[in-house]
């Protein structure tokens, strides 16, 4: 049904246009404070079990849709790591519920639908049963371009009653650098293939022109197209289930019940906050390092910058959350700015895993979060031409820091089991060149989802295989990855001595070791997921430390053939920190990279080596010298820590019993060691007032690197209350700059 602007008959179920519907929703919600003006929940009051049954039917439809996709997709990213989710939206574009999966996208796919409504697609493009819409334009909405949204309208008896949407993360987008999150994309024109809420098919079939465009636009078109077909299958499955559900419950019930589910969730979220947290104000600084001189960008974008985003998190008396990012530094020509849309995605992801985890998170959850995202800043750029390859950087970095803040509220309320230290980092890399079949290829490595160590909990150690941004953490099977990539896995293991120390330690992250396999040309791009290199994040809690970050080690021109012929040791893991196996066993040009967002100046071939530590810089919890000696012994026996760490960090004395093949704790010596540690602290610790005077002098004399001065000056210039507080703390003049 294509309408002219003069049409009075809209496509929505009640004869209105969907724009009218959206306006009505906004008006009724704003006027009453309740979603759609629903002060009374008539359906819930009348028959709560019927509403529960209805909810279960909808949820089952989205989960079935998601699982259908996994059976169709060819990408290991989907089949193994499960980087996808399927959601159901009202005709106005509000999320009613979503399947399991990458739940960060709950509000964002709805934003794309609302964008289409506001752009008047109903009249301009026409919206028909069977249409397929594809979008990965993050200026409209989204977390980063590889998260491709496929959306279809749901018609019932020729009237629009809702939308089904599926998000799938792609491994390749044809960007300026390989993979899907290019370090070298400094403006959106370099992000790779883009669909701006475009109609890519009709009558449930993709256009041939769309397929041709994909084939010429990305490095792995088959996977991209299979994913689109998988997403379409998921959406059709949801659509057909929804039609059956409407037949069973009736259209009026379907419409009204969805609204009640959103309003119920809004009220539930406020109630959860009031029952599990403590109101007040929390603070943490978040920084971003963008070294654009280390990657391939136009000369006028080749600028190194560090940017500060101070974060105030306020739990308000009414139970709403308020995120105030006053003082956020300016945006820049790099891939790691963020947008209000990706900020909403971040909050959705975090809330739905930490407090709104009932499986019912939806638009109502998000109505309980307000934000101050200063315009023309790092978190709300004024340009629509920004690169969006890594909008994820703030959600991961700032989100990981925010986890720790909310945890303090849980802790104070007594819900210690929900308290977890921060885990703000992630690491991955893109690659391109020739694969092991001799074909051109490109790929974003995403086994990280299951390889990061979490922050410590308040009552137990952190987890291995935890990524806040991917709730269904899974690193995938090596054998499947090896089918797709010219890499041979020679090792996967935890890196000893690398977690966040504390009374409870953070989880260990995995180090992967690969030999380049049958590729004659492999280029690497260290994807700038999070940019915490020189300045580590503040992720430890209550005396725990921040854990070790990611790093990448490589050997170009390796002597692997000789090693194989002479049957000498190859490379399987890191080895001893002071005498690593890579340096010990492999000859060639050794490369090391720690900072994120660089194109590696090397060309790798069959027999070369690559090692990546997926350190998440997750925090420990509590004073390390209060750690239970039994837990330390367990880590010693498992080879996760060394005796040196046991003594220096935990103050525990132990010796190895060769006969029993285990570590024996010396309890008396440990008590003495710990007492000595405390005395040492009292000796070396100085009153904060003395430190303040010294540091103030340093600041007044400008004793800091130029990048840091620039970082502070930019935030002092942009911030209001943050700037005042900074100057008040250091007793600086109102016009102070570095």
């Amino acid at each position: 049904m294509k309408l002219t602007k003069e049409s009075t008959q809209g496509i929505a179920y009640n004869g209105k246009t969907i724009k009218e519907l959206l306006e009505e929703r906004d008006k009724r919600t704003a006027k009453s404070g309740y979603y759609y003006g629903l002060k009374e929940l008539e359906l819930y009051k009348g028959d709560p079990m019927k509403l529960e049954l209805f909810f279960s039917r909808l949820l089952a439809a989205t989960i079935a849709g998601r699982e259908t996709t996994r059976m169709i997709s060819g990408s290991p990213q989907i089949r193994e790591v499960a980087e996808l989710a399927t959601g159901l939206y009202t005709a106005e574009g509000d999320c009613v519920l979503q399947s399991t999966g990458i739940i960060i996208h709950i509000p964002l796919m709805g934003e794309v639908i609302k964008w289409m409504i506001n752009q008047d697609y109903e009249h301009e493009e026409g919206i028909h049963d069977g249409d397929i819409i594809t979008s990965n334009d993050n200026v409209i909405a989204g977390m980063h371009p590889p998260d491709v949204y496929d959306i279809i309208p749901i018609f019932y008896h020729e009237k629009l009653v809702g939308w089904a949407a599926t998000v799938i993360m792609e491994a390749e987008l044809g960007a300026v650098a390989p993979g899907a999150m290019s370090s070298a994309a400094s403006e959106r024109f370099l992000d790779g293939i883009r669909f701006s809420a475009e109609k890519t098919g009709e009558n449930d079939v993709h256009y041939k022109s769309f397929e041709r465009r994909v084939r010429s636009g990305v490095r792995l078109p088959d996977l991209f197209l299979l994913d689109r077909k998988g997403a379409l299958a998921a959406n059709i499955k949801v659509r057909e289930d929804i039609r059956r559900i409407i037949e069973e419950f009736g259209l009026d019930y379907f419409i009204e019940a969805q609204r009640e589910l959103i309003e119920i969730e809004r009220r539930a979220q406020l109630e959860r906050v009031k029952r599990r947290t403590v109101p007040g104000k929390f603070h943490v600084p978040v920084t971003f390092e963008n070294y654009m001189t280390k990657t391939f960008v136009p000369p006028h974008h080749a600028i190194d910058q560090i940017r500060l985003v101070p974060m105030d998190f306020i739990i308000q008396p009414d139970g709403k959350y308020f995120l105030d990012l006053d003082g956020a530094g300016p945006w820049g020509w790099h891939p790691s700015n963020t947008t209000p849309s990706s900020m909403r995605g971040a909050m959705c992801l975090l809330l739905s895993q930490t407090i709104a985890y009932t499986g019912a998170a939806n638009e109502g959850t998000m109505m309980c979060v307000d934000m101050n995202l200063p315009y023309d800043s790092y978190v709300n750029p004024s340009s629509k031409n920004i690169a969006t390859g890594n909008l994820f950087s703030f959600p991961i970095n700032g989100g990981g820091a925010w986890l720790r803040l909310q945890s303090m509220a849980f802790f104070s309320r007594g819900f210690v089991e929900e308290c977890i230290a921060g885990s703000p980092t992630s690491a991955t890399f893109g690659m391109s060149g020739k694969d092991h079949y001799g074909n051109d290829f490109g790929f974003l490595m995403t086994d990280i989802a299951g390889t990061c160590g979490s922050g410590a909990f308040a009552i137990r150690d952190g987890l291995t295989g935890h990524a806040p941004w991917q709730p269904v953490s899974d690193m995938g099977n090596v054998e499947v990855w090896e089918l797709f990539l010219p890499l041979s896995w020679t090792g996967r293991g935890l890196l000893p001595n690398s977690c966040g120390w504390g009374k409870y330690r953070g989880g260990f992250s995995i180090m992967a070791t690969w030999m380049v396999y049958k590729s004659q040309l492999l280029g690497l791009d260290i994807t700038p997921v999070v940019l915490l290199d020189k300045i580590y994040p503040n992720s430890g809690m209550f005396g725990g430390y921040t854990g070790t970050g990611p790093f990448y080690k490589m050997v170009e021109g390796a002597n692997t053939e000789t090693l194989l012929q002479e049957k000498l040791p190859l490379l399987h893991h890191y080895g001893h920190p002071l005498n690593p196996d890579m340096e010990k066993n492999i000859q060639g040009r050794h490369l090391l990279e720690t900072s994120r967002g660089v194109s590696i100046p090397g060309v790798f071939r069959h027999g070369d080596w690559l090692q990546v530590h997926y350190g998440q810089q997750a925090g420990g919890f509590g004073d390390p010298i209060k750690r239970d000696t039994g837990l330390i012994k367990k880590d010693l026996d498992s080879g996760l820590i060394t005796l040196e760490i046991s003594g220096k960090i935990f103050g525990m004395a132990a010796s190895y019993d060769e006969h029993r093949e285990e570590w024996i704790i010396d309890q008396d010596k440990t008590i003495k060691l710990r007492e000595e540690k405390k005395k040492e602290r009292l000796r070396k610790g100085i009153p904060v007032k003395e430190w303040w005077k010294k540091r103030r002098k340093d600041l007044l004399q400008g004793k800091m690197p130029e990048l840091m001065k620039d970082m502070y000056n930019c935030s002092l210039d942009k911030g209001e209350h943050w700037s005042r507080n900074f100057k008040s703390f250091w007793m600086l003049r109102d016009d102070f700059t570095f």
Partner: protein
Amino acid sequence: MSKITYNKEIIGDLMDGKLDWHRTKAIISGHKDEDRFEKHLEALSERTPWKEKILLPLTDELFIVAKGTERIIKCRCGYEYGDYRENWKLSALIHVRETEEEINELYPYPSKPDPQYCEIREFYCPGCGTQLEVETVPFGYPLVFDFLPDLDTFYREWLKKPLDNEKEFKDLTYDVIKCWAKEG
């Protein structure tokens, strides 16, 4: 459905990390107990060697307690910090890890913070030498006031048990700093 509740022994074991995983998992996965805060305070009061009433646990070692008409922060060891609206770190001891040796002790691998850009600030209790917090922040960043609770709103509006001697919800840290500046 009857309301979920746990006795204070279970809550105590949970906070001490001594509850077996089977029970802990059930608490994590189950409906939350509505009287947790009260039980938690009861269990805490048995674990602190002083008499003041705990109003709010701030960390695993620091507590906001009622002392006369004031509300102060107190360490488990008994050491008393100032008004809860001042950042307690102002009254702590501090040590900044600045040398390569000190950084390498925590971070033996190639990825590690650069002390020119990043401060690792350790805060110790002057009373017992416990490491109360570690700040890993940009060099020169003000001390982080991690959490200023809105204590009266919490007790009055959320718990429906208003506290005596209501205090303004206000950060008093800068008043202390002003005094330091005056001292020269």
